[in-house]
């Protein structure tokens, strides 16, 4: 679809958010709380943070909540009745103010959840979610979208991409049918396209490595135990990287509430030692180095090969969120440079 260019003033943007709220939409946007910025439900533009580089968490919970009921069940006298989740009550959601990298991440989630058997709840949530991204005017040392095929002003993935042009004016690029629908519902709030230099407004994170080069090296790196031990020595094996990651989608399935309860899906991480533990006590990935390798391999080798999409969008959240500074960019650069 051809990208349509329009503009919108800050005041109109405020009205747009109010309109979404009036329509009963759940609006998730970056909000500042203490020294952290994170996605939260907002009802007005004034609550939205624009000047941050990146939020702590990704917007993936809009389509893949950290706890989600798959269905509920009731048991009586040995008989069970299963009740599907009602899809109709899932909220129409606008994720506002996400970054272009975050918007790109939804394609990776889509690939994971729907590469084979479609995931009903994910699909339903995704269908009800519209992404109104804001291009990056700043990047930090952790950002590397340009190394993984994205960019601070990349439109791909967004339904609408806004770029702050200064003086309360935004460039609005309408990039999908959903975006167009959104535009049509509030056409009067948008102005005509402006003749502005979008590029000059954007951050310029340097491309540090080539993703296909990393994939090529990784293909031969699995057995290099020493390499992975060296890389991962500092890693303490928590799930922070996976949980803040916009594309990490490993999950666990748990029942709660007794025999008349719910089956839940909740986030999990391949970094946890017990993630792959067999009941017998055997563990295919007993060491942290193996789990670190799995994380990188999965994103940069297995996903491109099996699902045709890179499992990383370069948002840098895992590096920012890591308690021990396992800076992924450094490690990827090291991998890219590991072999010719």
């Amino acid at each position, binding site marked *: 679809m051809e990208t349509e260019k329009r503009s919108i003033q800050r005041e109109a943007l405020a009205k747009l958010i109010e309109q979404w709220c009036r329509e009963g939409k759940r609006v998730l946007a970056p909000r500042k709380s203490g020294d952290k910025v994170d996605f939260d439900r907002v009802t007005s533009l004034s609550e939205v943070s624009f000047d941050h580089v990146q939020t702590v968490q990704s917007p993936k919970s809009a389509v893949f909540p950290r706890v989600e009921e*798959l*269905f509920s*069940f009731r*048991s009586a006298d*040995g*008989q*069970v009745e*299963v009740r*599907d989740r009602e899809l109709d009550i899932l909220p129409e959601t606008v994720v506002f103010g996400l970054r272009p990298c975050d918007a790109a991440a939804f394609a990776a989630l889509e690939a*994971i*959840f729907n*590469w*084979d*058997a*479609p*995931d*009903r*709840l994910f699909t339903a949530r995704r269908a009800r979610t519209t992404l109104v991204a804001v291009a990056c005017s700043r990047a930090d040392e952790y950002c590397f979208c340009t190394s993984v095929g994205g960019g601070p002003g990349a439109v791909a993935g967004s339904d609408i991409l806004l770029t702050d042009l200064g003086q309360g004016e935004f460039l609005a690029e309408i990039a999908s049918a959903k975006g167009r629908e959104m535009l049509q519902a509030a056409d009067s709030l948008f102005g005509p396209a402006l003749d502005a230099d979008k590029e000059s407004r954007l951050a310029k994170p340097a491309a540090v490595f080539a993703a296909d080069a990393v994939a090529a090296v990784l293909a031969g790196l*699995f*057995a290099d135990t020493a390499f992975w031990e060296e890389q991962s020595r500092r890693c303490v094996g928590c799930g922070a990287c996976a949980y803040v990651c916009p594309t990490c*989608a*490993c*999950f*666990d*399935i*748990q*029942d709660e*509430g*007794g*025999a*008349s*309860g719910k*089956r839940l*899906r909740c986030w*999990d991480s*391949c970094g946890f030692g017990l*993630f*792959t*533990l*067999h*009941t*017998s006590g*055997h563990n*295919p*990935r007993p060491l942290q180095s*193996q789990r670190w390798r*799995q994380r990188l*391999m*999965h994103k940069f*080798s*297995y996903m491109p*090969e*099996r699902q045709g999409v890179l499992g990383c969008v370069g948002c840098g959240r895992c590096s920012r969120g890591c308690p021990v500074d396992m800076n992924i960019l450094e490690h990827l650069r090291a991998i890219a440079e590991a072999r010719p």
Partner: protein
Amino acid sequence: MNARDVFKPFLMRIEQITEEAPDVRTLRLVFQNEDEGRGFIFRTGQFGEYSVFGEGECTFCIASSPTRQGYIECTFRKAGRVTSALAALETNETVGFRGPYGNVFPIDQWQGRNLLFIAGGIALPPMRSVIWNVLDLRDRYRDVTIVYGARTVADLVYKRELQEWAGRDDVKLVTTVDPGGETPDWQGEIGFVPAVLDKLAPASHDTVAVVCGPPVMIKFTFPVLARLGFAPGDIYTTLENRMKCGVGKCGRCNTGKHFVCKDGPVFTFAQLQEMPQEY
């Protein structure tokens, strides 16, 4: 159309419970909804997710043969939360089942060949499905040899079926128990499965071997088979990696780029040699 949620289990009624060994039992399950049952097709080697509502799901292969229709069976050892709850259920109670998942033993390709089944302990169930499958189509295959070992005599599962196989003249059955696991009246072999296999030295010519057992047994059995001249492509096994979803999403069962739940659980030794050691 509102497609069936991949996570939504079929409701199954426990039709029969068989005690196999200490803490090991077999459940025979039938579909509560007959339409669902009629539409259900599986092939040998496939697995499913079995659930006790309120406790969770666990993964077992389907232990019955597709040739026996109208029910599926699973055999499990009581170990964790779900298997303990499963073991506490009575006949006519409900369990959930999702499946069938995964690939299959290519028994059609094995037609006209000799078959050697090697199993250890609680890993006989996946083998039982394929054994009954070929026995029910006995004339398509040549010699059928089964080598089965467990820690002790009590730990041997499917005792009634072992007796039946032992009594058939178109099946050669060798059972063994670990040293110290024998009873005074034990007639079978005493020794670990690889050693017994070594002694038995079955001919590898035109023979397919299927190996299921704990990782350590598999590790020591492959070299014996290789010595006996089995081609890696003629040795089959099933991997038992931990799974949650069974449908290639949850991220647990990968060995390298392979999803055990989708590309497996059945692999040949030739395939395993190409795969990273993550199982």
